[in-house]
C-alpha cells in the first residue's frame, strides 16, 4: 500500500515541471519564471523536458497558423446581423474603453515589446496625418465662414444631426477619466480609433455654430483630451 502510494507520488509531476509550458510561452510572472530558470539550471532531466516542450510549443504555433483565416462571408454575416439589431443596443461607451484596456492587457510581454517599436513609428505617421486633417479642416472652416452670412446658424451636416468631433485622448488619460468625460458631455463614441482619433457624438440634438465652438473649446481644455476638432 505504502509502496503504491510512493510510486504514485513519484509519477505526479512537480509544481515546477507543470509550469514549464507557460515558461516556454513566456506567460509566467517574474517570480515563477525565476523559479523555473533556477530549476532548469540545476536539473538536466527537467532541461531535457523543457527542450521537448519548446518543440511542442513551436509546432502548435505552426499548426494553428496553417489553419488560415475565415472568409469574408463570416464578417458579412456578422455585420448584417448587427445592422438588423435594434438601434442603440451597445449601451455603455465605458465598455468600449474597457475593451481597449483589455486589448493592451491581453498582449504578451513579447508582443508589447514589438508593439512599442511599432508604436513609435506610428506616432510619427500620426503626426503627419493629424497635421493634414487640421489643415483640411481649417480650409473648410474658412470657406464656410465666408459663405455663411445669410445662412441659418445651424451647423452642417444636417438640421437634425447632433454635433460630432474627432478627439484624441491624452496618453496619460485613464479609462475612468475618459468615462467621466463621456458622461459629462453626454457623448458617445461612434467611430475610431483610426490614427488614435475617436469620432464622438454629443447628445442627441443639433447645436448652433456658437454652441459647437464653445463645446469644442471646452473639450480642448480638458486634461484628458489632447486634440478635439469638429467633424461632420
Amino acid at each position, binding site marked *: 500500500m505504502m509502496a503504491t502510494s510512493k510510486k504514485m507520488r513519484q509519477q505526479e509531476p512537480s509544481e515546477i515541471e*507543470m509550469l514549464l509550458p*507557460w515558461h516556454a510561452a513566456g506567460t509566467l510572472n517574474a517570480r515563477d519564471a525565476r523559479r523555473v530558470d533556477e530549476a532548469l539550471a540545476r536539473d538536466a532531466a527537467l532541461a531535457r523536458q523543457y527542450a521537448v516542450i519548446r518543440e511542442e510549443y513551436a509546432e502548435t504555433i505552426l499548426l494553428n497558423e496553417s489553419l488560415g483565416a475565415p472568409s469574408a462571408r463570416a464578417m458579412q454575416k456578422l455585420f448584417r446581423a448587427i445592422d438588423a*439589431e435594434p438601434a442603440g443596443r451597445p449601451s455603455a461607451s465605458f465598455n468600449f474603453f474597457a475593451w481597449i484596456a*483589455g*486589448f493592451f492587457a491581453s498582449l504578451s510581454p513579447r508582443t508589447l515589446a514589438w508593439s512599442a517599436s511599432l508604436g513609435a513609428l506610428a506616432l510619427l505617421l500620426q503626426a503627419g496625418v493629424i497635421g493634414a486633417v487640421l489643415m483640411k479642416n481649417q480650409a473648410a472652416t474658412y470657406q464656410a465662414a465666408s459663405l455663411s452670412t445669410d445662412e441659418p446658424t445651424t451647423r452642417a451636416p444636417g438640421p437634425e444631426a447632433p454635433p460630432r468631433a474627432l478627439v484624441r485622448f491624452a496618453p496619460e488619460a485613464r479609462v475612468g477619466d475618459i468615462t467621466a468625460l463621456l458622461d459629462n458631455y453626454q457623448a458617445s463614441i461612434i467611430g475610431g480609433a483610426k490614427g488614435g482619433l475617436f469620432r464622438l457624438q454629443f447628445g442627441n440634438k443639433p447645436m448652433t455654430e456658437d454652441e459647437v465652438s464653445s463645446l469644442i473649446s471646452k473639450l480642448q481644455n480638458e486634461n484628458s483630451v489632447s486634440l478635439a476638432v469638429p467633424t461632420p
Partner: protein
Amino acid sequence: MQVLYGRHHVRVFRFGLRLVRDEQVAEDLISEVFLDVWRQAGKFEGRSAVSTWLLAITRYKALSALRRRRDAELDNEAADAIEDTSDDPEVAVQKKDTSEALRKCLTSLSPEHREIVDLVYYHEKSVEEVAEVVGIPENTVKTRLFYARKKLAELLKATGIERGWP
C-alpha cells in the same frame, strides 16, 4: 466593432476550428461570438483580457455546436470530432519526421487536451486565464496540460518517435 473584429477574428476562428473541425461551422461560430459580444458589451467589466473573454465565448459556442451536431447526426464523422482518435497517427504518419508527426498528433488529441494546448502555446494564456476560459481550477489547468503532453508523447511513441520524455 470593426476594430475588435479585425484584431481578434482570426484567432477566434482558429480556436473554434480546432474545436469543431469544420470550417463552415467555425465561420458561423465567429459571427455568433462577435454578435454576442455586440449584444453583451454591457456585461464586460474589463476584469479579464478581451481575448480571454472572446475565447471563453467561442469555447462555449463551439461545444454547443458540437452537441447540436452530435444530437443531429450521431454518425462516425461527428463522433470523430468529439472523440480521441489516438491511433490515427500510427496509421497516417509513416515518416520519422518529428515536426510533421507532432502536428499530426496535436490534431489527434482529445478536444479537452487540444484546447488546453492551444490556449497555452498558441493563444499565450496564463494559468489564470486558461482557468477562466475553460471554467476549471488553476491546479486542474496545470495537471490537464501535463497529461495532454503525456498523451502527445504516447501518440508520438506509437508512430515510432521517442523524444526522451517522459
